C-alpha cells in the first residue's frame, strides 16, 4: 500500500464535497483524510485527499473520474516524495495536583510540540508534523493519560517551482488574494 495525496482544485460551490466523495465511495476507496480550504485565488477551493492504494493505475483512473466533475478545475495526484506535507494534532492531557510534571524540555526540543492552552487540571499541546511524527509523540505522552486527541487531515504543497494554481485553466480571470 502506498500513500497518495490527491489535490483537487474546484469552484467554490454547494454540494461539491458530496460530488467528490461519492466517486471514492462508489469504488469502495477509504479516504484516510480530507482537508478543504480556499486557495490564494478567490473562488477556488482546494481539497487535499489522502488515500492508500496498492495500484498506481487505479489512482490514476480515480483522478480522471474526479476531473469529470464539472466544477472541478484541476486534479493532481502525488506520492509523498513529490510534496511537502504536514498535519496538526491537539492533545488534551490531565494535570492533576499530584501528577508527575510534564517534561517540557523534551516536548519542545525533541517533539517540537507546544502548549497552546492550559487550565487548572489539564493542558492542550499542539504538535505539527507528519503522521509518523504525530504518532511518535502520541506514544510519548500516552503514559500521562490522554483526555482527548484530535488530528487534522493532511495539507500539502507540491515540490514544483510554480504554484499549482498556475496550471488551472486560464480562460477565466481569477481574482488573486495576493
Amino acid at each position, binding site marked *: 500500500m502506498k500513500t497518495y495525496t490527491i489535490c483537487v482544485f474546484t469552484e467554490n460551490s454547494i*454540494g461539491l464535497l458530496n460530488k467528490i466523495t461519492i466517486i471514492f465511495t462508489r469504488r469502495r476507496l477509504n479516504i484516510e483524510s480530507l482537508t478543504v480550504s480556499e486557495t490564494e485565488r478567490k473562488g477556488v477551493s482546494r481539497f487535499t485527499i489522502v488515500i492508500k492504494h496498492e495500484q498506481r493505475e487505479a489512482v490514476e*483512473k480515480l483522478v*480522471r473520474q474526479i476531473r469529470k466533475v*464539472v466544477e472541478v478545475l484541476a486534479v493532481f495526484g502525488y506520492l509523498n516524495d513529490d510534496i511537502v506535507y504536514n498535519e496538526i494534532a491537539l492533545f488534551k492531557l490531565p494535570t492533576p495536583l499530584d501528577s508527575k510534571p510534564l517534561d517540557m524540555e523534551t516536548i519542545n526540543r525533541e517533539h517540537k510540540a507546544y502548549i497552546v492552552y492550559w487550565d487548572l487540571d489539564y493542558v492542550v499541546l499542539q504538535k505539527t508534523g507528519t503522521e509518523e511524527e504525530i504518532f511518535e509523540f502520541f506514544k510519548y505522552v500516552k503514559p500521562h493519560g490522554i483526555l482527548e486527541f484530535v488530528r487534522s487531515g493532511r495539507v500539502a504543497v507540491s515540490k514544483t517551482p510554480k504554484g499549482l494554481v498556475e496550471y488551472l485553466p486560464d480562460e477565466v480571470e481569477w481574482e488573486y488574494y495576493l
Partner: protein
Amino acid sequence: MAIAEELLEKEVSTQTPETFITGSKALMECLLAESVDTIFGYPGGAIMPVYDALYDYMDRINHILVRHEQGASHAAEGYARSSGRVGVCMATSGPGATNLVTGIADAIIDCTPMVAITGQVASNLLGTDAFQETDVIGITAPVCKWNYQITRADEIPEIMAKAFYIAMAGKPGPVLIDITKDAQIGMMTKPFEYKKIDKLPGYHPRIKPKAEQVQKAAELINSAKKPYILVGHGVLISEAMEEFRALVEKADIPVASTLLGLSAISIEHPNYMGWLGMHGMYAPNVMTDQCDVLIAIGMRFDDRVTGDATLFAKQAKIVHIEVDPAEIDKIKKAEAPVVGDAKEALKMLLPLIEKRDFTAWKKEFRDLEPAEHAAVNERDFAGEGKIKMAEVVRMVSDKTKGEACVVVDVGQHQMISARYYDFKKPHSYIASGGLGTMGFAIPAAFGAKMGAPEREVVAFIGDGCFQMTIQELGTIAQSGVAVKMIILNNNFLGMVRQWQQLFFDRRYSFVELQNPDFITISKGFGIPGHTCDDRASLSESIDTLLNSEGSYVLEVIVEKEENVFPMVPAGRSVSEIRLK
C-alpha cells in the same frame, strides 16, 4: 410560504419595471432560446408556477403530459436519441423528482443529452422536511453529469445556459436543475438576457484531438496486418457516419459494432461483419482474438462487450478514439489513445491512412458465418411450432426495408431485434444499453417519434417490459402520433428464464407471468390492436400494424422457452461463446 406570498404580491404590484419577468417566465424564455420545442412532464405543487407560465407558451413549446414521470425521462431519452438534440423533462418535487431518476440513470450511462427540471419547496423551507421535500440534488448527484439547485430567479438564465451546454458538450449526459418555488415565483431584479455558452472553467472537453495522438494511431493502423474496427455509440452521437465510412473504405478494415453502435454503418456495407457482445454474432466476437490491431471508436469496452476483459483481444494493440479521457485505459490499455470527438478525429485520421486491401482477412470473418447460420438462424427460421421472435423481427425488417427507427425494451426480444433487423439508416436502434432498463420502450418509442416525426417508429417489447410502463399508452393516445408497438409475448421474463435454464439448472424462480389481455387494455387506452397466434397470419398482421394510420399494438404469441444464441456466458472469455 411567507416569502412566496410576499413575492407574489410584488408581482402584481405596479412597482416592477416592465422588462423584469418572473423566474418561471425566464425559464420559458431560456427554453425558447435553446430552441426547445417539446417537453415531457407532469405537474404538481412545487412546479405549479412553471406550469402557469407554460400556459402562455403553449403555442411555442409542446408540453406532453405523461402518465408517470419515469415515462417523461425515458421519452426525453427517446427524443434525444432520434433527434440528436437535448431531451427535456420536467416534474414536481419529491415523488415527481424521484420518479425521474431511472431515466436519468439510464441517460448517463448511455450518454444521452437530457435536461431534467424539477420543482422544489421554497428556499426557506429547505431542510425542514416540508411537504414533498426531497433532496433531489443528493439523490441524483451520482447519476447526473451535472446538477444544480436554483434559489433565485436571477440565476435562471445563466444556469440554464450552463445546463444545455453541459448536457450536449463532449460526452453528452443528463443535467438536473432543481428550482425552488420562490425562485419560480420571484421576479428577476434585472432584465432577462440569455447568453449561450460554449465553455466553462471546469469543463472544456477536447473536441479536436492532438495531432501527435492521431499520427501515432495512423501509424499503428497502417502497420496492421489484421486490423479490426469496433464502432460504438460515439460515432452516432458525433454524427461521424460519413467520416467513419470513408475510413473503413479507404483502409478496407472489417467492422463490427457494439449494441448501441448498431446503425452507425449500413448492414449492407461489405466491411460490416455484424455486432459483438454477450448475444452478438459469432465472427465479430471470436475475431477479437485474431486481430493484431483493434481500433475502438466511440465505445467503452463494456463488460457485455468484452466478457472477461483481461482475456479480451489480449494479443492486439489497441487504438482508442474517445471523447472522455476517463475511458482511456479504464478497461483496456490503449497503445494509441486519441482523445477527442469521433468526427474530428476521423477527419484528421483519414488523410494519414494508407489505402489497403484486406480481402483475405475479411474472408476469415465470412468463413465463420455458415457455422452460426446452421446452428442459430436455421433453428430460428425452421418454421416449426409456435412463431419465433426472429421471424417477426425479420418480417418487420423486410416490410420496412430496414429503414424504420427501431426502439426496443430489455430482454430476449432486445437481442433478437438487434440480430435480425437489417439497419440501413443511422439512429435506428434505440435501446437501453448500459442500464438495461425494463420499461424503456413504450415511452422511448413515443419520444423517438416526437424527435423524428418523419420516421416510422416500430417498438419491439417483451410482455414483462410492456407492463412496466404500460400507462404511457395513454400519453401516446392523447398525443395522436403513430407509434407501432409489437409485443413479443412468451409469457415469461424470457431473458431471466434463459439464464435460469442454462446456469441455474432450470429452476424457474418467479419468471412466469399471468398476463393481462394486452389488446383489451390497449383498446381501453384508445389504441387499436390485435393478437396474432399463427404463422399463416403473421404477414397480414404486420401489414395491419404498419399500415394503420395511428398507433397500433400487435401482440404476437411466440415460443415460450426459446433461447437467444450465440451467448458468451457472463464474465467468460469470448472464445467460450456458445452457439447452442
